[in-house]
């Protein structure tokens, strides 16, 4: 068996089992660490698709920034009493949700398998990307020429998110102190 095929099966099974653990672990810290494993498996899958920049950013942004934030918040809240989770939702609702989601997934898989017949129409073949100087350079040139507007708008979005987070996390009395 091709080693890429083997890597694909290993990474995708890690991703699926890890995401099941995210949902079914009672402790939020265990969920967070399962999610980190899922993100690493996703980075492997991106690398298999020769999307090197996305694979690197997956590890840097998701596991390096977002998950650290999650773990910090879990530690910060430090719930004295665990949430009555998974038990309190009725088995009827759980079964209904599982049935609905699996019907959705099944129908989407049937639709997705139709995509096997898609003929590639773009110009970015493997050889063309290598000729342009690799995945990272090709993406960067496209990002900073054709998609510059979206890139700048993204910075506005991040600025808005920073302002919103600070406004939310600020304590009430300190805001009153600033006003008076």
């Amino acid at each position: 068996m091709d080693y890429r095929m083997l890597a694909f099966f290993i990474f995708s099974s890690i991703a699926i089992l890890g995401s099941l653990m995210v949902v079914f672990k009672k402790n939020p810290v265990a969920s967070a660490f399962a999610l980190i494993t899922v993100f690493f498996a996703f980075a492997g899958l991106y690398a298999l698709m020769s999307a090197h920049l996305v694979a690197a950013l997956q590890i840097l942004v998701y596991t390096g920034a977002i998950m650290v934030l999650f773990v910090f918040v879990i530690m910060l809240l430090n719930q004295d009493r665990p949430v009555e989770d998974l038990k309190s939702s009725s088995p009827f609702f759980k079964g209904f949700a599982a049935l609905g989601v699996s019907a959705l997934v099944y129908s989407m898989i049937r639709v997705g398998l139709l995509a096997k017949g898609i003929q590639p129409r773009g110009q970015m073949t493997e050889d063309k990307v290598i000729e342009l100087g690799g995945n990272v350079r090709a993406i960067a040139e496209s990002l900073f020429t054709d998609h510059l507007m979206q890139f700048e708008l993204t910075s506005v979005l991040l600025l808005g998110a920073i302002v919103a987070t600070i406004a939310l996390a600020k304590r009430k009395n300190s805001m009153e102190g600033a006003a008076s």
Partner: protein
Amino acid sequence: MIGVEPWMLLPVALVIFGIGLFGLMIRKNLLVMLMCVELMLNGVNLSFVAFSKMHQSLDGQLAVLFVMTVAAAESAVGLGLVIALFRTLRTVDSDQIQVLRD
């Protein structure tokens, strides 16, 4: 023996998206619900990369970069909201948050 074809990633992406959606529906801990949203976003990212490979175009990978930025902003604001809620209500249980209902 065929190699790894891009369409093989699509069922994986869909299953991950479905697991995330299911978790979002059955869990009551707000932090775990946010993590399930991240799972759903990652499933969509995986299908973006697969379609990008399938169509031999890099636009899908660019879309993934923007989705990652939005996910970072979303989780920052979401966790800020969770902290603010915990400070006032002392809980992260989504069933206990019923201030508007009373």
